[in-house]
């Protein structure tokens, strides 16, 4: 339906929009104070990821990217939130603030710096290959989302937000990937469908075990092992 070349400018403009909103939801994850908010921003980010995959797959038509987009909707909009609510329900809905090492304004500043760094790293790569396609937007944005994922993971001391940070990192890597490797992205299909689910399952089980044994899900409180 979008196969004529005249659609490419519209699709790529829409993809720019999706990329911008994708990055914005990564910032949202840095700025939020509650686990549920973190999860909601992650779901939002996954929606924009799926939209970008569908747009890139529409012209030139690439069924594997469309499959990536659709699989992504099924797993990240329904299965992962469902699994999290099943295994660590009280953690997701707890209305208390997440313990955070740095406060939110500082975090947002650092997040901005990380985004600039991502552009700084990605631009020479894009120039080196003379890229004109979707990767021009998706590579720096994906890299920035990856770095923001590392940051949220590092400053949060709660286990469920750390899990969501890991999933957000993979989202970022895949967001860059869909624009670069269409046609080779068997890995993306497999990994999106299976990896993220396995990751959520394993870490959910572990979080519940930690909660039952130690009585907290604050991963930062786990500091028993050290050399003595």
């Amino acid at each position, binding site marked *: 339906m979008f196969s004529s070349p005249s659609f490419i400018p519209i699709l790529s403009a829409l993809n720019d929009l999706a990329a911008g909103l994708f990055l914005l939801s990564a910032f949202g994850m840095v700025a939020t104070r509650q686990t549920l908010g973190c999860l909601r921003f992650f779901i939002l980010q996954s929606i924009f990821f799926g939209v970008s995959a569908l747009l890139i797959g529409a012209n030139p038509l690439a069924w594997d990217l469309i499959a990536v987009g659709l699989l992504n909707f099924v797993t990240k909009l329904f299965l992962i939130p469902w699994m999290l609510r099943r295994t660590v329900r009280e953690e997701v809905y707890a209305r208390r603030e997440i313990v955070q090492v740095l406060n939110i304004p500082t975090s947002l500043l650092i997040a901005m710096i990380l985004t600039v760094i991502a552009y700084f*790293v990605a631009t*020479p*790569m894009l120039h*080196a*290959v003379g890229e004109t396609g979707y*990767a021009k937007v998706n590579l720096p944005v*994906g*890299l920035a989302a*990856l770095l923001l*994922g*590392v940051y949220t*993971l590092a400053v949060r001391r709660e*286990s469920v937000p*750390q899990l969501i940070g*890991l999933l957000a*990192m*993979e989202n*970022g*890597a*895949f967001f*860059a*990937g869909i624009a*670069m*490797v269409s*046609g*080779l992205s*068997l*890995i993306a299909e*497999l*990994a999106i469908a299976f*990896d993220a689910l*396995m*990751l959520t399952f*394993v*870490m959910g*089980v*572990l979080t519940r*075990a*930690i909660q039952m*044994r*130690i009585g907290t899900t604050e*991963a930062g409180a*786990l*500091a*028993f*092992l050290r*050399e003595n």
Partner: protein
Amino acid sequence: MSLIAILILPMFAALVSWLRATSALAPVATLASSGAILLMTLKATATVLSKGEVAALPGWIAVDGLSALILLLVAVVGFAASVFSLGYIRATAHTPRQVRVYYANYNLFLFSMLSVPVLIQPNLVWTAVELTTLFSVLLVSFEDTRDALEAAWKYVVLTLMGAAIALLGFMVLSWAFRRINGQVYTWAGLTSAAASMNPLLLKVAFLLILVGFGVKVGLVPLHTWLPDAHSQAPSPVCALLSGVETTVVLYAILRLVPIMKAAPVLDAAKGALALGLLSTGVASFMLLRVHDYKRLFAFSTARPC
């Protein structure tokens, strides 16, 4: 064909161990499957020695000299650890459920490590490395004590962070390959195409993968999880973690070195050597302060090169 059987057998054994109806057979099934895997690996290695390469599924599953070596290592340690598991689990497991969880995860963990050397598409190798973490986490936390859970949490968070960074590296690698319209995306195809691939992209990909997988290998300064996870895991699992898992991931990095050699922008071998020396040095000094013998072994694992 036996290469495909090597991958199917542990999955079957995991299923037998997990299903309640057949779980009484779990130790026997695990022992039998890892024994059969060892025999088939020996046969495959002999074929590699005489013919040079064995391909079971061209473009997907094949074994050459380097991967046969790693495969043999995994099979030998896997068999030995499954023999040791028999008595160890009988003595330490408290509930039937623990036994089921242990053997199911043990076999899946073995499956993921066997698939790293056997798969020849880089992207699938990344998936297999990711699975080695996911299948071994519940083995590290098996004893369900405060310390074991902490070790498992550190292990899963740090290594999966590394894996996500390496994932971007693999994406950049396949991007570089696609830009030159490369056809067969395997290790061999990459090596032969490397000379014409964009050197900057190769460099970025290699660095991302080195840092990402370096966490899992335990390269200093990314080694902090390693002594904890290795010392808290049950002994047979500890053997697999330090004897095989790090080696298998190191193999994935090693596969990139000939590719980087073809693109002379970064001396990958020298960089890896420097990191390895740093790891060895730091780990050796930390060994002086450690008194728990399992942690001693763990620190000696953090000296991969």
